[in-house]
């Protein structure tokens, strides 16, 4: 029984060796297909690498575009703010109160109730002036140039005009 058992063990060991050698042989036989697998593997790696790279590139591009969009948005906001401030300034400048004050102070505008319209009878004025001149001539009698430069004469004329204007 013991011998038999040893013999069995030996047999098993041999058979194992055989199996091992058989496996090695088998590998050698299938070298071509493993090359294909390797090529496929490398290609896949390269493709995956390319894919990853393109994704990164795409993301980079997206990030860049996002940055541009953000900058443009900022610029729009900034310009909108400027526009709003200008609108406010325009609204301030268009205020009737300001326009009214500016017109009175700088453009000579007057309220209708502040203006007095006078109806001057020019014919009567000329007649009065002639009469005055005649009176002056008869009173002084000398040269007309003296009358013209005589301050009293001028004062009289002004007084007459003023009485006509403001009776």
């Amino acid at each position: 029984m013991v011998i038999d058992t040893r013999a069995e063990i030996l047999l098993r060991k041999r058979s194992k060796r055989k199996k091992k050698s058989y496996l090695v042989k088998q590998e050698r036989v299938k070298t071509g297909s493993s090359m294909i697998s390797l090529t496929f593997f490398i290609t896949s790696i390269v493709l995956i690498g390319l894919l990853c790279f393109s994704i990164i590139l795409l993301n980079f591009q997206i990030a860049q575009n996002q940055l541009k969009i953000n900058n443009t948005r900022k610029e729009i906001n900034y310009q909108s703010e400027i526009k709003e401030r200008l609108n406010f300034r325009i609204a301030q400048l268009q205020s009737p109160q300001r326009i009214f004050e500016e017109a009175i102070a700088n453009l000579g505008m007057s309220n209708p109730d502040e203006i007095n319209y006078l109806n001057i009878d020019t014919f009567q004025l000329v007649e009065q002036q002639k009469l005055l001149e005649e009176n002056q001539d008869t009173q002084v009698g000398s040269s007309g140039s003296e009358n013209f430069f005589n301050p009293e004469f001028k004062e009289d004329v002004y007084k007459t005009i003023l009485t006509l204007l403001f009776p």
Partner: protein
Amino acid sequence: MGIIRRAKDEFRPIFIFLVIISSFLILSYRLIDLQVLEAQEYVDFATNQHDRDYNLFAQRGKIYDKNGKELALSLHQVTLFANPYFVKDPLNYAIKLGEILNMNVEDLKEKLSRSNSGFEYITRKIGPELANRVMELNLDGIYSTREDKRFYPKDSQACHLIGFVGLDNKGLAGVELEYEKQLHGTDGKIIAKQDGLGRIIPGTYTLKSDPEDGYDIHLTIDENIQFYTESRLKKGIQETGAKRGTIIIMQPKTGEILAMANYPDFDLNGFNQSNSDNLKNLAISYNFEPGSVFKFVTASSVIDSSSISKETVFNLPPTIKVGGRVISEPFRHVAKDYSVADILIKSANVGTVILAQQMSDEVYYNYLSKFGFGQSTGIDLPGEEIGVFNHYSQWSGSSKATISFGQGISVTPIQLLRALSTILNDGVAPNPYIVKRICGKNGDIDYFPKPEIAEKRVISSETAEAIKSILIRVVEEGTGKNAKIEGYKVGGKTGTAEKPIEGGRGYHSDISITSFMGFAPGDDPTLACIVMMDEPSTANGRVWGSTVAAPIFKDVMSFTLDYLRIPPLTTDIEQ
């Protein structure tokens, strides 16, 4: 011994099993406790630790006049705040900030030294230029955020009407308060993750909700009419030394308010520096005894409720005693025959008392109620008063008589103008309103918030026509001559009411409220206006509605007719 040992050996696996089971149960309970029972608490706790909320402020809507001129708008401003925990040198910071912001260094230092506070406002809503100067200093713990600030480009124009907002951009008065919901919009929210030191982790922003800007509001008032009305009122008050005054111009057939001026006024951009009394919109909140201007209401009621017409003649004594009180005519000392029209034209107190006596208390009370006294007009502005108008069961023996000529009843200017507009609108009371239209920024929302209260008939159109013709005669031949406008037929009624003694009985003999209420053009009025001046005085001592308020009415109405290019009617020209 063997038996005991065997028992121990048998119990050991059971014991271990029980220990494992109980540990498992305890762990399970704890897990359930953490994951289910108190889960929300821990989630909230973690969220508070990790997340920081930021408000994206919605831009407040603008307020325009009826022609699209801006009356109120919001601009972005910057608010500076500090986290004192990160402020290393409070004194140095305070000196630097104080120099730029022109603020007290001690106050700033005190704020920046509160290291346990975590948040302190330095200053709110300053210009971006100033804020940039601060931010360029690059100080640790000093931050900035954007906030909207309300600006009013026309300063004090239509101040009581537009109202104002507080520091938190919420309306506190006027249209700003009444239409707060529509103007304010809805703030948006952003959530960002923060690290253990409270620093924001870049790229962790999550937009929770977009801000929705507030709607723009277009008022019914016209900027230019408003300006002229305010200027004329101010001039009138300065000339007469009156305490206060108000003018309202309204389209009687629609209830559209074209101008609402009050004096004293205030600067909307610095309302907090103004006296609180000046902030009141007198046009809707000032209760006063109207005096003779009220007589047309009594005349309308009596004509509408009885067979009395405007031609019916009454013999009027110079004095009449009602409920123990003697009512007399100021300028008539003999008995005279007056028609109803004459009573209004000559503004006869005794005549009006006799007219009121033709109605029962209940009928008279009902008419006054229908005219809207003692009730809100429903105008879309906050703070409207309803006046003082007691139920007829509480009237004394002389109440009806005094109310008939405008004493013993308190009304607001807007109530009076609405009553006049009822006459001009063929006896139907219009609902006054101030907002013409509300619209979204993209034109997505556009609606007309005209008051929904149904317009109600107060008197018949025949009565309204009769009273209108009498009021035209009041200006042509009666007490309202100073309100005549060349080329137009104008109607109206003067009022001079003695002021009641505050906290006492009776009336001041030398202090009065003068008013004039009128309309144009003639038979088909498109404009109605009320002028009220409180405690005016003139150099010659003649303080009457006809001498103080009527000339102001004339100027304001004349300007408005010209400005709106309302031509005189054919009947006006024939006249």
